[in-house]
């Protein structure tokens, strides 16, 4: 899986295709992220990344992330389930013909100078923050495709937003646009 260019995003979806919206926030460079059914084999530099990719619909699960030498944190890390989390937190469903936000993968360094390198790895739900960025950078996509929360958590905010947006548009065809968020005046 690779991030799409703006041009490729504009091409939209074919039949039985889905958009995946993914955010990665990492302290260290990552070389590969593996999910059941998907591999992200892209060098990911430290920082915050916002990806839109095109995938086949289906059920996926976060699995491992890989850090290559010479990084002090080199190794393969299992993306673990939160200790007491609701079941299947790491599973997500990608629906055809939709924009599926599947979570924000956060990778943080463990304690400074640990005897053994450790990483704090968590998949977080930042649907609305990502939505606002989508609205800023790819508003046309939100209008063309319904949004989904890919996570199997029961959170249905994006679906509600999408439905409300469609209803308001149909009622008025005069929809206010999102405004920039942090960092903008």
């Amino acid at each position: 899986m690779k991030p799409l260019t703006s041009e490729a995003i504009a091409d939209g979806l074919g039949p039985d295709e889905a958009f995946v919206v993914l955010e990665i926030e990492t302290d260290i460079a990552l070389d590969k992220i593996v999910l059941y059914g998907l591999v992200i084999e892209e060098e990911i530099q430290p920082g915050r990344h916002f990806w839109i990719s095109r995938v086949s619909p289906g059920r996926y699960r976060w699995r491992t992330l890989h850090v290559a030498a010479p990084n002090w944190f080199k190794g393969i890390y299992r993306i673990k389930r939160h200790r007491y989390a609701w079941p299947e937190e790491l599973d997500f469903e990608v629906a055809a013909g939709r924009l599926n936000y599947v979570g924000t993968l956060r990778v943080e360094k463990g304690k400074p100078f640990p005897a053994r390198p450790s990483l704090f790895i968590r998949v977080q739900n930042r649907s609305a923050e990502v939505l606002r960025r989508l609205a800023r950078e790819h508003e046309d996509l939100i209008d063309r495709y319904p949004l989904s929360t890919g996570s199997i958590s029961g959170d249905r905010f994006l679906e509600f937003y999408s439905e409300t947006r469609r209803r308001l548009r149909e009622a008025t065809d005069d929809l206010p646009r999102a405004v920039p968020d942090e960092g903008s005046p």
Partner: protein
Amino acid sequence: MSIDRSGIATSLLLAFVIVASTALTSAPSAAGGHAPHQLFATDMILWARVSPDGKWLALTSTDGKEQFLHLERAEGGERKLIYRSKDVVQPLYWVDDDTFLARFGEQTVLSDVGVTNSGEIEAGEHVVKALGTMVSALPLEAETLLWGLEMRGVSSIHRITVDDLANYEERANLREQEFGTKVAEIDCVSATWLTTPSGAPFAAHCWNDEQWLTYHAAEPGGPLRKIHQYDPADEQGWLKPMGPGEQPGNLIVTARRDRSTIGLYEYDPRTERFVREIFHPEDADVEYVRFDPVTYEVLSAQWNDGSMRRFTYLDSSKRRFEDLLGADDPPVDQIVVEASSAGRKRFVYWTSSPTEPGAHYFRDVDRDETRLVGRSMRDLDRDRLAPMTTFQVESTDGLQIEALLTVPLEVPQGGAPLVVMPHGGPIGHHDSQRFDPMIQYLASWGFAVLQANYRGSSGYGEDFQKAGRKQWARGIEDDLDAAFEQTASRPDIDASRACIIGGRYGGFSAVASAIRHPKRFQCVVSINGVSDVPFMMWDGSDAASASNAKQIFRQLIGDPVEDYDHLVEISPVYNVEALEAPVLVVYGTWDIRVPRDHSHRLIAMLDLHGKEYEEMIVHREGHSFSRNGWIRTLGNLRRFLEKHLGDASPSLAAGP
């Protein structure tokens, strides 16, 4: 699909983003109100201790940057600086009449006191970097004390002399066994030791990485055996030794004893029975217990009587503190006796109130004199702080609740604009009659502030607290409505100019209330507010990760699956359409209890519906803002209020 550009322009005009910065808000105040930094000043007296003979006070204080150790002559108050440090200061102790020690980080400051021939204070200072902490002085042995160590999961106490401590660093590679005389040890950490005045341990309370453990010795100084253990999640299991019981071998403990609140009891560890109830306030927890440092008698219990913090004195001594106070001293249940000399001839007490952030007084009983030792926030003008009053409100279903109202010192003709401020929680928290910088800030700028201890608040009993369950955007907000309506009828309040402000649950409540009453409030402020209740239960809070989260959510709020429709019905993000008042959405980027996505959701929906809002991002702040976080926030908060409620200063708001 076409987009109406005029809509974009409107939306951009309606929405503002503020990134909180100190520069915006920390400038000195203009005429009128306080500047935020004045109300969040951090200078205070930390600890005050009277020497056993009552001749001296040792004081530690801070200016917010450094910590100071002073010695003060009890008669006359002449004061001398002994030591200053940037390290955190811990309690200080008098070892005997002439020697005291104080801890600053890892440094222990030992000081001998005296008076020169010319009458000047003389105090030597010897700084030692020693592992461990002082456990207690031994009033029966001069220059001897008990010292606690914690190594490799084992806690121990040692009898050492002042010389042992003073020479600690000279004894390189000192081993634990060589540090004084070991008196006792237990296999756990964070130990609290209880010892007799002669230094014989009779009980201890400590943590073993899984449970809290209580140890007891049948005879003081004898072997300690484990008599109780409890898991932090086991509320009924709570049993903490606090001091010696009246009967030999018994303990004074705090425990629940088949009640939902914590009380103070005498407990017989041999029979595992509670011998007597010493003090268990009706429907409130005993939060803190103080003991006479000399006699080890139970002195006072701290608890919350509704919105009032009270100190109930339980000493049976002939010299009860309530009899030792002067005519001008505060009532005994509103003071904390910090320290006293032997025989209680001289003591230091601390008191606070909504208009007093904290003050220490020295009382000389024989002379019947009380003098001020020092105040917290000493540059704050107390005369410009607004008093707080309380009143009872009958809610829509007849439930009685307590409300707190702070009215500005000067009220314009027509009344002061009103800020309603629901507290967070909601269950088990409450607003109290204490100094609150945010309330005083708003009052100083002309706004009256209404708080209400709605159903579910702590301090009013178990039934009242349980009455708040599953009452989000229902009974809780009914209570707030009743408090608002009663307040609105006052001549000094102009309720036609009202805004509702809340943090955490209070942020939820603020937006939910404005949705319930679209015409009532001219503006709304949500600070780290919950906006989407089902989301909070799934993965929108660290609280959802707790082992018992599902059970607690179901009990207090509802089930995210079975009650989904109800939870959507009460959640602000799904009901923004009804909102008419402009909203200021404030959030800390590091909050994990109510993560910032709650605020982003609210903003996304406000945006979608073309509602007026402002966004304020407070970087590097979490669920509870730090002092700096508030200083960065309050200026913008006031500007937002003045924008929507008008200038609240009496001279301007009164109009022609």
